């Protein structure tokens, strides 16, 4: 793995030339009418931005490439970037730091090298790996974090990690998190001040519900090409291929699914199964274009620049853009949720019928849009209700699935919910209806 030392290209101040920051300095040399009086125009703020501020970029993909370039040109000189992916040919229509020769290489490393080549004096330290590999001490070193990810799970993890990092005694422990996301001509950017303003978890219910097709439709009454593709991937793959893991990046696997789905579609006289649709459904592909990524990344970096310099007020706290019909945008304050499992502090009130079994409760939790949990394990302060793992514990607690919740938890009692995908515990206060 490349280290920061290998990629560093010299002392940063040596590379500055007269008038290098002519454009940015017009903003940093004097306040505007809406600038907070605490803004210290001039050398102090430039010194902080260019020689002290340390910023972390999570993701070196569609948003990440743009974010790195914008930060470098804005005057951030100590930039770190994490990405666990390698470059694919389908990235090249927007991830502008990569070329065809880079396909297969780690995004973080190629992106860092390119930025340092193009913008002298900027140090970009790449890490090719997962955000979960890093501990609190690592995240503590940054002044700001910008997130350009397409994974909900990774965003929940970094959000919860930064909220947990906050120590009220230590103001430095509060790391502003700027998060961006895009889909086609639409996107959003937001500023999260962990524990102070609405966090990523607070707004989970704003996410689009993923299209899920009922198994009975897939198995018995397919109508759409998507139903045939789901049949091939959800039912036929495990039946025919056994334990072999499906890799949606492997064209041979997509071919197999496409062939099987096409045959089924033919049998049922359903039109429209194509290679591209097959790939789109099984990989859950979201359309992505350079221009939308540019808008959202620029918005994220603009907020980072304003926060780092206090040269203008920063976004409070959500910017949403829809470019399909004219240019429509909406800037608003997303409210913090008191019962947010990450930043709210209060437990979530859940009312269930007395007759419900533990299994039914788990089913409900899995379906709940504002929780989005895959395989929850449940316990109370005094006992284990149901654990998904390890196998011995799963087996030992399995009989509880059929028991009524009411027999295990008193009215008003608390259940702790954990899951391997969640970097935090969720507290439920159960009442019976």
């Amino acid at each position, binding site marked *: 793995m490349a280290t920061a030392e290998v990629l560093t290209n010299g002392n940063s101040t040596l590379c500055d*030339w007269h008038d290098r920051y002519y*454009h940015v300095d017009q903003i940093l040399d004097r306040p505007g009418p809406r600038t907070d009086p605490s803004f210290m125009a001039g050398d102090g703020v430039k010194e902080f931005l260019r020689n002290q501020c340390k910023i972390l970029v999570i993701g070196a993909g569609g948003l990440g490439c743009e974010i790195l370039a914008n930060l470098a040109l804005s005057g951030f000189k100590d930039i770190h970037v994490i990405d666990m992916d390698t470059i694919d040919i389908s990235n090249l*229509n927007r991830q502008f730091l990569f070329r065809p020769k880079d396909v297969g290489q780690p995004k973080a490393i190629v992106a860092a090298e390119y930025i340092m080549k193009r913008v002298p004096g900027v140090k970009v330290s790449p890490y090719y790996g997962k955000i979960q590999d890093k501990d609190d001490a690592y995240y503590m070193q940054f002044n700001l974090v910008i997130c350009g990810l397409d994974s909900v799970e990774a965003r929940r993890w970094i959000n919860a990690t930064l909220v947990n990092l906050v120590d009220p005694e230590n103001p430095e422990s509060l790391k502003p998190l700027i998060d961006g996301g895009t889909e086609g001509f639409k996107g959003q950017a937001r500023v999260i001040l962990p524990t102070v303003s609405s966090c990523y978890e607070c707004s989970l219910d704003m996410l689009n519900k993923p299209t899920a097709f009922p198994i009975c439709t897939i198995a018995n009454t397919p109508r759409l090409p998507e139903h045939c593709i789901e049949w091939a991937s959800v039912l036929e793959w495990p039946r025919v291929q056994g334990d072999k893991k499906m890799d949606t990046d492997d064209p041979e696997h997509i071919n197999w699914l496409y062939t099987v789905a096409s045959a089924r579609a033919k049998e049922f006289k*359903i039109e429209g199964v194509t290679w591209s649709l097959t790939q789109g459904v099984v990989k859950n592909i979201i359309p992505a274009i*350079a221009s939308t990524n540019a808008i959202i990344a620029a918005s994220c970096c603009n907020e980072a620049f304003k926060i780092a310099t206090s040269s203008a007020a920063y976004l409070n706290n959500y910017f949403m853009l829809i470019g399909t*019909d004219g240019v429509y945008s909406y800037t608003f304050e997303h409210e913090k949720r008191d019962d947010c499992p990450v930043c709210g502090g209060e437990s979530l009130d859940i009312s269930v019928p007395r007759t419900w079994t533990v299994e039914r409760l788990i089913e409900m939790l899995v379906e709940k849009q504002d929780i989005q949990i895959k395989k929850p394990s449940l316990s109370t302060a005094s006992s284990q209700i149901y654990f998904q793992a390890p196998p011995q514990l799963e087996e030992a607690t399995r009989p509880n699935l059929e028991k009524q919740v009411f027999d295990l938890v008193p009215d008003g009692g608390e259940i702790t919910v954990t899951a391997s995908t969640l970097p935090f515990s969720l507290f439920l206060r159960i009442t019976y209806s």
Partner: protein
Amino acid sequence: MAPGESQDIEVVTTAIHAQPDNKTRRYDRQLRLWAATGQHALETSRILVLSSSATSTSIMKNLVLPGIGHFTLLDPTITTARDAGNNFFLAGPDSIGKHRAQEAVPLLGELNDGVEGTADVRSVHDVLESDPAYFKSFSLVISHNLDSPTVEKLSRLLWTDPLSPPLIVVRSAGFLADFYIQFHEHDIIESHTETAPSLRIDKPFPSLLGHALSLELANMDITDHGHIPYVVILVRVLEDWKRSHNGLPPQNYAEKQAFKAALRDLKRKPDEENFDEAEAQAYRAWTTTGVPSDVAQLFTLPAASGNSTPNSTFHTLLHALQKFTELDDPPHVLPLSSTLPDMKADTSSYVHLQTLYKTRADEERAIFFDLLDKNADIDEGVVETFVKNAHAIRVLRGRRWGEFDADKEAIASAVVGYPRESASHFALSALSNLTSGSTAPPTADALLAEVQRIVGPGIELPEKELTDAIGELARAPTSDLPNVAAFLGGLVAQEAIKIITKQYVPINGYCVVDLVDTWTGVVGTPA
């Protein structure tokens, strides 16, 4: 195995080899938006950019990546130390002293070897004088921070001839920006709006009505009964209802409730979800299918300014559409769409219904085809796309750049309706008017006086919004901030893609951007 079956398998295996090629894979994420037709339009486009500033190269980056055909940067500027610091598409200090356009073209070009780029180091003023036809050889012209008199001259040149390319005028300073797209008329067939075409439940075509009436609801197999598509249920129940109500659908609240009750009464088991769907969709039974007003008003559009129109294909199609809606059969409606939404049904009843819609849609498209002007040689694929999207076609009529700033009535109403957008727009107009090459940047007072001169006496601009806008411009009058350049680069490229592909709907008016408070707005939309 029957011969037919073995052939099927053969067809399927042949299809396997139709794996996408490298180009399709490269463009996969955008082809899912604008498809091969949009991509073809991009690949045959030629774009001219006046300047190679940070904002200009940011715009171009987002157009080179998706694969336009050609771009030219027209710019005589020699790279300064300032340019080298804020423009990602220059080679840092190495570019200082060299032609900015010539330095930027290769760095933009390396983003996509399918795109051709040229640097032209003549000045736009000279070209306007010596070779005005030059501008008309492009499909789109984009300018950034070009001085007002030159924009004025260029916009008039391109406006006089409706066959000239659209012009996007971008202005920015510090955290503020606006841009405008000048076009005579912009027609959109694939608008990608979310409005769905009518299923014609209230005016069922003969085969659909026949199918709905043929069902023996009471004697049907119970499983089949739970799988009748809601469309068929609604057509049937509406027909029965009309027979006992003088041929009329439900007229008022009480009747609508009674209609829903009739749907519920047909349920033979409480868990028949198809009947629940029918009840949820019952409004379709009393929603009259006609020509949507947005489409109807296109039939009475006055002729576009100028005698020739570049969009004659669209207008030929529109004229045929009007004739189609005047027919008694099909009954004063748009051509039927063959796209059926998903609904609770078993495979065979859904596929059967789909076939009914598809067959009928084909028949109506043939009727439409007969109504088309036989002299117009229009590609069949275009006709098909037009008919399929007939419910969502759009026509935008534009204005010349700058007309808004001279239209006192429009200004007066904009100031009331869009105070912050108006304030920023006129502040940018003032800055643009007062900026010329060598003079010192204008002061806040000078900007204020110029804004007042533009809007004229008797129009009050909102004080706080105006002070905020002018103050920001006076703070950074010549600053092309990297983040603002990148933001505009994305926004303007999105609009350019919409203009070129004629898919999705571009803005009509001045799009105003304020990155202090992070908002965008539109002002000056033609009435």
